[in-house]
């Protein structure tokens, strides 16, 4: 039978392109405190709506409300604020360093600081993290030295990765921070494997993985959720929905008619959708998921709704594909501004204190940069010897690599 209409391909388009007014009417923002907080032993099927709503704690006036309020003490809140501000200051300086030719490349996480920072603070420091390139906040919140991070960004003589990896592809076993993968999503099922190993060894450590909404389209995402579900692996599977995969809006990744959290439901995994710019909500859902994992209840999928406020990387120009002022219209605001507002609502924080802290963290980054630059930058000659290029391909160097090293003159 012949169709009466000709077939048409649907190619998703975002609500607004350059030159148009930003439009986030499609983002449904429920009132803070309106979503229930189930017991961790809940059956995934009983909380299906949690995958479509938005768990929020901070309301518009900066008050923490509702059952997900983690009731963090003042010291923890201030530590979180400081780590987020330090992350932003670090990003700003490293972005500039790229423009100054001190590194080849950089990727900021501006606007997404609550994700790395609050989650690092909700996890135990012994838990293993498998991040993407936009969770530098994890390292910073875990207190990893900025100088060491910068040494990697500058590929200098103190770069522990010996100039082998592109800038920002940090690796720190000591910080429980897995080597960043340029092949997106490959680390996501690896986080599940790590968690399975922890369960096999009857350990008490859990794993957490992060993936962008764009890379959920990779098969590795499916494998991660399948294996996590089958083996009830103690792992938290975080999807950072920052609206963009370089230039492609989240509709291209399959977010037009459903949420990314809802992906988890088909695997029988409890799935939560959370306001990713709400430090308290992010902390609370991460704690809930970590408690489940630690109680042998298995994996939780979390979609963290956020907005990539800066360029994808130093090689990107967002004005080519989205309205220039879109970030300021993002309905969930800025994570630092919102936590600041909360502290001020609690009457434990002031604009003066905030400004002082901003200067303090910027000075800390500046001092670290000064030290890191003394070990060299991309533009100087202070790199590891080319002879090291042949190390670590194998544990022991085989004959053919030894010969090739000699060919190079070492």
């Amino acid at each position, binding site marked *: 039978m012949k169709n009466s209409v000709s077939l048409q391909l649907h190619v998703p388009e975002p609500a607004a392109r350059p030159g148009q007014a930003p439009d986030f009417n499609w983002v449904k923002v429920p009132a803070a405190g309106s979503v229930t907080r189930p017991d961790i032993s809940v059956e995934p099927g009983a909380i299906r709506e949690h995958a479509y709503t938005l768990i929020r704690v901070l309301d518009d006036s900066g008050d923490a409300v509702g059952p997900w309020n983690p009731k963090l003490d003042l010291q923890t809140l201030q530590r979180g604020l400081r780590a987020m501000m330090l992350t932003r200051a670090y990003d700003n300086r490293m972005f500039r360093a790229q423009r100054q030719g001190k590194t080849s490349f950089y990727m900021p996480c501006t606007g997404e600081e609550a994700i790395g920072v609050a989650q690092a603070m909700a996890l135990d420091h012994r838990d293993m993290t498998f991040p993407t390139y936009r969770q530098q906040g994890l390292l910073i919140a875990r207190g990893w030295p900025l100088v060491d991070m910068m040494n990697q960004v500058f590929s200098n003589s103190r770069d522990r990765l010996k100039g082998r990896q592109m800038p920002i592809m940090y690796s720190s076993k000591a910080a429980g921070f897995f080597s960043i993968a340029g092949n997106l999503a*490959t680390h996501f099922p*690896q986080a599940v494997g790590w968690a399975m190993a922890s369960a096999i060894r009857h350990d008490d450590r859990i794993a957490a993985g992060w993936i962008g909404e764009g890379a959920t389209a990779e098969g590795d995402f*499916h*494998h991660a959720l399948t*294996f996590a579900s089958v083996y009830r692996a103690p792992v938290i599977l975080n999807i950072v929905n920052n609206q963009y995969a370089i230039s492609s809006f989240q509709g291209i990744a399959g977010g037009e008619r459903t949420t990314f959290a809802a992906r988890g439901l088909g695997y029988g995994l409890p799935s939560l959708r959370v306001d990713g710019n709400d430090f308290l909500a992010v902390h609370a859902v991460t704690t809930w998921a970590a408690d489940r994992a630690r109680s042998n209840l298995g994996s939780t999928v979390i979609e963290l709704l956020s907005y990539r406020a800066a360029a994808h990387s130093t090689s990107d120009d967002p004005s080519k594909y989205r309205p220039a002022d879109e970030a300021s219209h993002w309905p969930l605001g800025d994570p630092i501004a919102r936590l600041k507002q909360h502290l001020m609502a609690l009457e434990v924080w002031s604009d003066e204190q905030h400004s002082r802290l901003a200067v303090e963290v910027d000075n800390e980054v500046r001092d670290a940069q000064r030290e890191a630059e003394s070990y060299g930058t991309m533009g100087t000659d202070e790199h590891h010897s080319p002879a090291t290029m042949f190390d*670590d391909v*194998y544990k022991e160097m085989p004959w053919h690599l030894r010969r090739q090293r000699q060919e190079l003159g070492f």
Partner: protein
Amino acid sequence: MVQALNSAMDVMMARDDSVVVFGEDVGYFGGVFRCTEGLQRKYGPDRAFDTPIAEAGILATAVGMGVYGLRPVVEIQFADYIYPATDQLISTAARLRYRSAGEFTAPITVRTPCGGGIFGGQTHSQSPEAIFTHVCGLKTVIPSNPYDAKGLLISAIEDDDPVIFLEPKRLYNGPFNGHHDQAVTPWTEHPAGEVPEGHYTIPLSKASLVRPGEDVTVLTYGTMVHVALAAVAEGGVDAEVIDLRTLVPVDIDTIVTSVTKTGRCVIVHEATRTSGFGAELSALVQENCFYSLEAPIVRVTGWDTPYPHALEWDYFPGPRRVAEGLRKAMEG
């Protein structure tokens, strides 16, 4: 050979509780070729278990377990099914030590049956070793008999780098020499079929000189070792047959010593020819033995076609074609 492989895993699981075995059908059932039979019963379901049909997922979780500190031994049911896992193998397992400057490693062994001769058509017969030999950071091993299979598999499991362990499935039940119209002698009647019970190793990167000879060197591995031996016996050429056993890092000294002595070289593998591992061997021989060569190097390989189901024996480089190659090398 199946029992030898099973014994290698059994020995290692008993010695080292970080060794875990998993893959499609390998747990309760013991694998479609029975190589993991009894391991789940003996070591429990959290050390020998079934996985979903997801080769990339198997490799990815193995890498994660390796990062944790386990020593996973995974089975890919047929080498023909390994391609979905190549991103995990090439982009991560092989590169992890390098990209983390030694902080994180993936000491994984990937066992997978390869080669044809069982009427498996193009999806159960391939020999994809050259895909892996091209990847820096991987080691590629392929045994030709039960004694070596066990010793090499133990070495592979103990190795701290990822190892692709290809098992020529046509050798599981005996030293198949390419005469498909004749009954295969069982391994019980072959000297290399005798396998000690306990722990022993065959070092990686050491070839085996399976037949000393003076006139021509045959470089081969896997099933083709037995095919080459049959061709040599039937052709009356005094060939030196070398079973490489490990392809990367290859045992260059044994190759050079032999070809320098004989001055002639025939390379035999079942895999397709173009960019096959034979091309690398040919280049190595040329680079290292050029002034000793008395004839062009000859390659006897599978044709550059998919493995055809009903025409299997026209595809397979059997003893007649190997003998032809030997003649060519002797005349050249």
